[in-house]
């Protein structure tokens, strides 16, 4: 019956639908071609200029391989850490009283609305050898030697955790609010502890949201540029930092292009694989 209804609707709209749909799709198509397809083709062409030599050189470059490993592990650790912290943050926000909830979400939104650049500089001021952290340690614990965090691999992590946190908390919070109220009531009346309720009702219900948010954060972390560059420094480049180096300072656009293709391919593969296992795209609509 549903099929028959659809047929009727489709017929009724057929007369005007096609033209209007074409017009509405035009801006999107233009944006897609100009903003994604053209740059992608340019990059692929640039990377293949000397018949694949750039790829051979890229893979044998120790700079690139170190950056790739650094980027990969950062994405893995940031994702796992933020999934853990973000889920608890979301659960706390969902169950907190109104005032505390507003504070928790306000802090999150405020940091999200602030430019990534500004926040990265903020972290820099914290992490500088004689920065805010040093000042705190010096004032309260009498520390006299400078803090060695700025422009190390470790220096990237706290900032990256903070940058990516909202992308876990917001979708997980939305899912937490949608957990079936009757199931929670049932768990309560049957005598379940908070922990048992969390394990048997809440977590299974919000698991799809956690997974899709985790994939989103992982993919974003792979390509993140400003924060790792500023806080990791020139000797701890991630892939996007190396690409920037090859493209601009080293005057090797072919290498930069091949690295870009590799990073993009890796990202797409990660997405497709996780979609195959967790059906992430269904959550994103």
């Amino acid at each position, binding site marked *: 019956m549903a099929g028959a209804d659809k047929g009727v609707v489709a017929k009724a709209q057929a007369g005007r639908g096609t033209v209007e749909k074409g017009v509405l799709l035009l801006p999107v198509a233009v944006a897609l071609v100009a903003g994604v397809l053209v740059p992608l083709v340019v990059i692929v062409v640039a990377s293949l200029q000397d018949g694949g030599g750039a790829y051979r050189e890229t893979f044998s470059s120790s700079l690139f391989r170190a950056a790739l490993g650094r980027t990969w592990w950062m994405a893995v650790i940031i994702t796992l850490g933020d999934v853990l912290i973000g889920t608890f943050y979301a659960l706390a926000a969902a169950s907190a009283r109104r005032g505390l909830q507003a504070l928790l979400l306000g802090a999150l939104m405020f940091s999200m609305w602030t430019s990534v650049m500004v926040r990265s500089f903020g972290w820099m001021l914290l992490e500088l050898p004689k920065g805010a952290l040093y000042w705190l340690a010096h004032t309260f614990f009498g520390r006299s030697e400078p803090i060695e965090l700025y422009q190390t691999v470790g220096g990237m992590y706290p900032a990256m955790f903070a940058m990516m946190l909202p992308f876990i908390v917001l979708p997980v919070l939305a899912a937490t609010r949608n957990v079936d109220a*009757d*199931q929670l*009531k049932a768990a*309560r*009346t*049957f*005598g379940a502890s908070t922990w048992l309720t969390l394990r048997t009702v809440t977590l*299974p219900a919000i698991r799809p949201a956690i997974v899709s948010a985790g994939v989103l954060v992982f993919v974003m972390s792979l390509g993140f540029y400003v924060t790792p560059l500023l806080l990791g420094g020139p000797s701890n480049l991630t892939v996007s930092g190396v690409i920037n180096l090859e493209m601009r300072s080293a005057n090797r656009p072919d290498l930069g292009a091949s690295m870009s293709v590799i990073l993009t391919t890796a990202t797409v593969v990660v997405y497709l694989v996780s979609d195959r296992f967790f059906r992430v795209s269904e959550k994103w609509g």
Partner: protein
Amino acid sequence: MAVGVDIWQVKVAFGALEVLKGVDLNIAPGELVTLLGASGSGKSTLLNVVAGLLQADSGDVAFDGRSVQDLAPRDRNIGFLFQSYALFPHLTVAENVAFPLRARHRDKKTQGRVTQQMLDLVHLGEAGGRKVSTLSGGQRQRVALARALAAEPAVLLLDEPMAALDKHLREEMQVEVRRIQRDVGITTISVTHDQTEAMTMSDRIAILREGTLVQVGSPEECYMRPADRFVATFLGEANLVPLTDRAGSGGTAVVRPENYTVETNLAAPAGPYSATGTVRLVSYQGARCRVEVTAETTGELLVASVAGTVDRAGLAPGAPVRLRCLEPDKVHVLT
């Protein structure tokens, strides 16, 4: 074993809206009492107060003579059957049924034994390993009932238990739930807006209207001797015949449609509560035939429900008829 439930002067208000205006109700051990009312009557609110999911503004609820007002839901030892069943979708049938036992830290052996007992009780002994999503609506309800009973609760609470079922299954499950409730002998409070369900399942019906109990009694008492016009028309259909011809007495007679028969011979002598009028509509319903008549004197609509085998030849719309009361002594008079 079974405990009595005493509800004393329970009042609940949401802001300025008084949802329960001081309800008193005493439920005997092992009894099934249905709270019947329209939406907004406060029946679900009262159930939630008994469950402890909602705190009453004043009044008291006692199980077995002991107040439970300060106890959390988990400490009240109740079994709750939700309208949506609220089964845990990622657990198997057996894991769902075992949940209250697991929550109360019973050992694994007890969990397994009791779960199987409960599944046998609801005739789902073989379904323990199945996923909830593979069950039909009726089976889900059985699982929810088994889960509600698993931890041997003192009181069983049913919140619109049949609302999600289709008509046939609903009738089957009404009888089935009643059988299980009797077998277990558990004190039960059910909430519904379906008067047939209330009549079929209950020892007593408590009829709520706008936060007040208007009548508490056995289904037959409520149907045959309704406390007021509201109950008379809410519980089944009723012809409210004003008794103006009785000198000074006033009052209203409640004549049930099945207590009227339709006569086309107006020459025959009239009996008590009878009325003449013209046929407005005849609806044939199989077992019964419903005849709507416009009363001659008052112009009001009267309804008779006669056997479906009645000769409908003389009952064309507009035909003059008399409604004769079959058993005048069964007519209840409201004063």
